């Protein structure tokens, strides 16, 4: 049997591990952690083997499908896009699980922890493997549920419970949009076939959806006076789902709070599972976006703005995990920005964006696990109470440095020397430059460059504040155990060299995602539909443009070095309650206040008060009346049931008589 035949085991093994660990984990060694670890390791091996097969022959995708009911099926599809995601998710998740063996060793609820993370991984793998949009949505919701459970893992803590609720409700806004998108899509397909859906064709499968792009794009509706194609509406709604899951502006508010869960959960959410699901959704349905360039522009702007917006807040946070949270939001913005460039570079956009996603997974997981290592040892998350940690935790310090260099994108343009983040982030920024050159719109490029400067600044600020200088409080720290440092070192190696090794191969591999035995998309035709031209042979960018991202990266390092190491500028003059810019940033643009106090408390609560009044007084009154009436009638009728058999016989005979008379009348009238 070929390894492809075992593809269905990839999500199934972690799901089974969840069941076993959940019910029997408490009695096992270390909360049954070894079961999910083993299951995910097996999934990882299968994924990587399939990816290797696929690398040699990218046309031969793995596709298996079984009939579910009516026009729906359950199926798995492993094309290049899914393959790289699978390998990354299983691999990073495996390392995080191993690390958690050490990190969670003292927690009494670790059986529950490992069961839930296994389910989390299984759900994410389900999202990646789905061959139809409905199944993807089901797994997508399961991811949301698991994130709720895991963020609120320490549910005794009010702040954790609140954060879990916030994450759940905020992503729910996106989920509703996603579901609406599926409904609009389905109704569109229904119209295309005039209500006669063909037998034996699963219309919600990606291949069918992509085949129908021309018809969908030809359907128009008028919204607020604008004529919009059905395809644009669908893609924008899908993107709405992605905004919620991937923490894009303005639905990013849940991500920083999601830090309330265990740090390993944060790593899992931020690197391997959950947040990348949104980017993946856009990449998965990318041919539809290609047919709707208006939606692509929205993706680009939202992504670019998020990248910049989040990095400004990253600069002022004092909680080490929150800095990383804003960093994630910002990097996800980059990925969306890369996807948004599809109208110029075509399928390369998927390659560029996914490349950054994979690299980001490695270095962000590493950053979080390093932060976890520090927190585990020092016992606080506040960077103002740290300082000099590098001396007592050398391995953590070095791995964190590597991750930071990767995040800031250090490397030498034109050569193959550089961290993985360098190759992917620069590729995105170069793509935006190409876009600017081609369309004359420089805004996405400016977003990208300024965000790069800020990224470098905040990450080195974190590094200097935490690892250098003298301890600012008395903490008795120590280096973490090897079960934690080994995963760190492995991830560090990947963060350092993954980009160099795979760069060109990666793009070519992903560019053919939508041209294979299962799906065939003609990109030129899509460009025609969307009425734009693709750039086929981009010339080389000017040297300055190539170097600029690195220059701003170094500039960020220098700024942080001067302020936080050399203390050239006295921070206390800037960090004060009187400085309006600082206040604005530190309060996260007052988004919390706007969301909670204005929208939630005043508007929504006010509306619900009115709703409650109507519900209680008017609707309930009617309902209660009806039900009281019904019960009273029931009480009356039951008295007919006398228990005397003679009356029963009478009822039968009377019934026959009445029925005859009634029928006679009715038939005669007819």
């Amino acid at each position, binding site marked *: 049997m070929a390894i492809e035949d075992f593809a269905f085991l990839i999500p199934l093994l972690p799901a089974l591990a969840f069941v076993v660990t959940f019910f029997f984990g408490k009695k096992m060694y270390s909360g049954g952690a070894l079961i999910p670890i083993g299951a995910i390791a097996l999934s990882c091996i299968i994924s990587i083997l399939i990816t290797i097969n696929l690398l040699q022959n990218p046309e031969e995708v793995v596709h298996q499908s079984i009939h579910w009911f009516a026009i729906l099926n359950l199926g798995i599809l492993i094309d290049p896009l899914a393959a790289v995601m699978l390998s990354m998710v299983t691999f990073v998740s495996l390392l995080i699980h191993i690390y958690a063996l050490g990190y969670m060793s003292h927690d009494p609820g670790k059986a529950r922890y490992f069961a839930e993370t296994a389910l989390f991984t299984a759900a994410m793998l389900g999202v990646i493997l789905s061959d139809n949009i409905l199944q993807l949505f089901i797994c997508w919701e399961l991811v949301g549920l698991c994130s709720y459970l895991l963020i609120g893992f320490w549910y005794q803590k009010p702040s954790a419970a609140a954060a879990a609720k916030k994450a759940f409700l905020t992503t729910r806004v996106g989920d509703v949009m996603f579901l609406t998108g599926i409904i609009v899509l389905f109704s569109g397909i229904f119209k295309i076939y005039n209500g006669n859906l063909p037998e034996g064709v699963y219309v919600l499968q990606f291949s069918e959806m992509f085949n129908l792009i021309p018809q969908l794009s030809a359907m128009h509706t008028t919204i607020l006076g604008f004529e919009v194609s059905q395809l644009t509406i669908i893609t924008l709604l899908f993107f709405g789902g992605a905004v919620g899951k991937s923490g894009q502006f303005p639905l990013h508010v849940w991500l920083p709070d999601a830090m309330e869960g265990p740090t390993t959960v944060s790593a899992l959410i931020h690197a391997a599972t959950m947040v990348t699901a949104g980017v993946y959704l856009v990449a998965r349905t990318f041919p539809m976006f290609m047919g709707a360039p208006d939606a692509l522009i929205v993706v680009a702007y939202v992504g670019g703005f998020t990248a910049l917006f989040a990095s400004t807040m990253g600069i002022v946070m004092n909680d080490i995990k929150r800095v990383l949270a804003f960093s994630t939001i910002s990097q996800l913005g980059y990925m969306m920005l890369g996807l948004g460039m599809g109208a110029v570079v075509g399928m390369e956009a998927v390659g560029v964006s996914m490349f950054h996603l994979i690299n980001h997974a490695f270095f962000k997981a590493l950053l979080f696990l390093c932060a976890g290592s520090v927190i585990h040892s020092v016992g606080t998350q506040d960077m103002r109470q740290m300082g000099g940690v590098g001396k007592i935790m050398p391995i953590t310090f070095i791995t964190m440095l590597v991750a930071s260099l990767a995040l800031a994108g250090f490397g030498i343009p034109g050569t193959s020397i550089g961290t993985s983040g360098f190759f992917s982030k620069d590729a995105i920024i170069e793509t935006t430059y190409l876009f600017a050159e081609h369309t004359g719109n420089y805004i996405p490029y400016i977003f990208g460059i300024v965000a790069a400067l800020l990224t470098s600044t905040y990450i080195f600020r974190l590094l200097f504040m935490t690892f250098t200088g003298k301890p600012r409080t008395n903490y008795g720290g120590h280096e973490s155990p090897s079960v934690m440092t080994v995963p760190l070192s492995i991830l560090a190696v990947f963060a350092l060299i993954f980009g160099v090794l795979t760069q060109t191969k990666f793009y070519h591999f992903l560019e053919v995602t939508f041209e294979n035995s299962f799906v065939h998309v003609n990109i030129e035709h899509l460009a025609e539909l969307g009425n734009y031209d693709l750039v086929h042979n981009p010339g080389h960018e000017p040297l300055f443009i190539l170097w600029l991202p690195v220059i701003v990266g170094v500039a960020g390092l220098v700024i942080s070095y001067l302020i936080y190491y050399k203390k050239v500028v006295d921070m206390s003059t800037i960090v004060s309650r009187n400085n309006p810019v600082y206040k604005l940033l530190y309060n996260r643009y007052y988004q919390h206040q706007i969301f909670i106090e204005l929208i939630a408390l005043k508007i929504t609560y006010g509306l619900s008060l009115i709703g409650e009044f109507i519900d209680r007084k008017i609707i309930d009154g009617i309902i209660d009346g009806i039900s009281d009436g019904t019960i009273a009638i029931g009480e009356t009728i039951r008295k007919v049931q006398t228990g005397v058999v003679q009356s029963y016989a009478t009822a039968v005979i*009377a019934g026959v008589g009445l029925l*005859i008379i009634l*029928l006679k009348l009715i038939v005669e009238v007819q």
Partner: protein
Amino acid sequence: MANYMLLAPELVLTLVALAIMLAGLFFGPNNKNILGYVAGVGLFAALCLTIGGLTVNETLFYGTMTIDALSQFFKIVFISVSLLVTIASIKYTEGNKNADEFFTLLLFSTIGMMVVASANDLITLFVGFELASLSTYALAGFEKNNPKSMEAALKYFIIGSLSSALMLFGISFVYGMTGTTSIPGIAENAGALASSPIGLIAVVMLIAGFGFKMALVPFHMWAPDTYQGAPTVISALLAAGSKKMGFVAAFRVFVVALALLSPNWQTAFAILAVITMTLGNVVAISQTSVKRMLAYSSVAQAGYIAIAFAVMTPMALTGGVLYTLSHAFMKTGAFLVVAVVGYMVVSDNKNAKDIDHLDNFKGLAKRMPLTAFAMMVFVFALSGIPPTAGYMSKFILFSSTIESGLVWLAVIAILNSALSLYYYARIVKYMYFLPASGGKISEPKPYAVAIILALAGVLIIGIWPEPFVYWAMEAAKVLMV
């Protein structure tokens, strides 16, 4: 030469029933319930034989019996219900010196129902009807020392005899006007019957006869008393099995034989369906005995199934046929749960009264988690909540109603479903949200097995309905020729 192998399920059951009767002589009262295993094996063999002959389409004995998709479908319903009841009864008859008679009667009633399912002649149909009825009269009064059980049997018998008389009366009219008792023969010669007022009287008489088994209002009045008084396992048989006999007989007689008179009986069934479901649900609300509540719920369910006659499109018939299968599992399961709870109450306190009172369900989720969960699924299935068998059947039935333009009927049916949720959800509330009054108890194995099988049936049909819908469609096709 007729292929007698087609009757193998009936023959096997007859032999097993006779064997049990004989073997009963050699067993002491303490281990007679072992014979239940024999009955179970016999039923299982009959089930396998019936499933083996799913695709047959032949007639036997000069056209008086037919083996087709419809008969096989209903036979499987009957055998499944009997099998579940038999398994549970292994516990119920423990230590009873009449256990051999119990199982013999149970098998005979099953054979009677199977004969009705296959009947292609009114006389054959009547004989099968009586075989099943007489056996169940005795079974309803099985607890000889329990006055309630005796009362139940007696009422059942009196009203049953009256209904049999009405049915025979109807048959005699049909025979008189058409000159034949063969069902296809009647269909050919129904012209005279349709043009005469006697046709209307014959239809109403037959409706009364079958309506007694189906428990359609106003022929239902025996049902609550009998279901409540009879041993709970027998209530399950009556509500889930013998009731379906009325439906299969009505399918054959009205839809096939009296198709020409459909304006008459479609109207009649529409009226009866509305009255039946509404009265069943409304009265069920004010019951405090769970058994009695299930009895009224069973009346209401008959009203839903009767919609199939009122609409009479292929989709409606498919829905009706599928509903009988779903109802068989959910109703049997629900009654068996009541039986287990009764067992629990008696083991708490030997002299307990009102063992089927709703209060005994308080905190059941803590005392018997499996049973409570199963009951929750059963009552949700009865009220039509996905993903259960009840939802799927209701969905097909109600949508067929809308499809053929009878929106008012669909609205009434859906309102009724909403109403029924009140008393179904109340059981769930009692089981899950009220405090328990005793410790954890483990269900007796036979009950647990039967309940799990019923639960599996309800969930499998609900989650993967396609093969069952297809199967019901095949059965309904027999009627539409």
